[in-house]
């Protein structure tokens, strides 16, 4: 009986420790490990343009994507770097966002630099009709890391 109480006690303490660890685990601001998708940027954007939003977003949103591209513009937004990548069409925008804690990796990048990135895909937004103010097709990626 005493042994059982000790075992139950140990299991309970372990459960509390694991629960507290998971509850307080800091956010991962950087996509690492094996990516869910390795894509060619031109084909990735083509898929986003041609496929209905719901299908593209269901496939990619929240998933890690690795790709290569050329920086078109590097923007510093209050310590967080955002790289706009060169695309084949002017109206297609690909934005790769870095958390402030990982922005040092890419602070020195300039327009024209070739980069390989791994990010988490946040989806695509497109103009809904001709009256829409949004004239660009915007692909948003965050939690990026430079490979």
């Amino acid at each position, binding site marked *: 009986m005493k042994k059982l109480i000790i075992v139950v006690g140990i299991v309970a303490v372990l459960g509390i420790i694991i629960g507290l660890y998971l509850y307080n685990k800091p956010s991962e601001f950087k996509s690492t490990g094996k990516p869910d998708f390795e894509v060619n940027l031109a084909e990735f954007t083509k898929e986003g343009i041609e496929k209905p939003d719901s299908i593209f977003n269901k496939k990619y949103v929240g998933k890690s994507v690795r790709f290569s591209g050329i920086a078109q513009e590097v923007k510093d*937004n209050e310590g967080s770097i955002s790289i706009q990548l060169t695309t084949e069409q002017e109206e297609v925008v690909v934005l790769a966002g870095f958390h402030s804690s990982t922005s040092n990796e890419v602070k020195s990048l300039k327009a024209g630099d070739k980069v390989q990135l791994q990010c988490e*895909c946040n989806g695509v937004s497109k103009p809904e009709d001709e009256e829409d103010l*949004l004239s660009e097709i915007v692909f948003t990626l965050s939690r990026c890391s430079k490979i």
Partner: protein
Amino acid sequence: MKKLSILLLSVFLFIHTNAQNFSTNTGNVKFLSRTTLETIESTNKQITMILNTKGNVQIVVPINSFEFEKELMSTHFRENYLETSKYPNAIFKGAIVNMKGVNLNKPGTYKVQVKGNFNLHGVFKSETINGVITVTKDVIKVAADFNVKCSDYGITIPSSVVSKVNNEINVVLNADLKASIN
């Protein structure tokens, strides 16, 4: 001569009927949920905002771009509350009600009221937002502070965390807009 006059008139009309756009893809949104047990803050630095000289406004917020301090909060926010694989973007489309008193080409500070439709979590709702537009030589700064009720947008807070997550979320928006090609 007649042809030239028609051409000039056409160019004049084109310029005056087509509004000039100002936009950004790196605007900021912060939200704050405060209860006696927990304060939850999150920031998103990837919002797209477009404003034109006619007073039309559009904001696209990629929901997955919100950054949380704790991973569990982020997972719950994305997967359980906002269901981002189904509804990846929140979209606001509206217009400035008091546009007569606003000149986006003249430096100054303008208090504005924007009325429009907000699409969040697949639910459309009419919202009125008060904000301030500051026009400077290089940039148009937009700032707004408003509240959104989760229950209005079909966002259910589980009973187990209802004491930690406020139904009414405070949203603070800041964006620096630059002239863009229409």
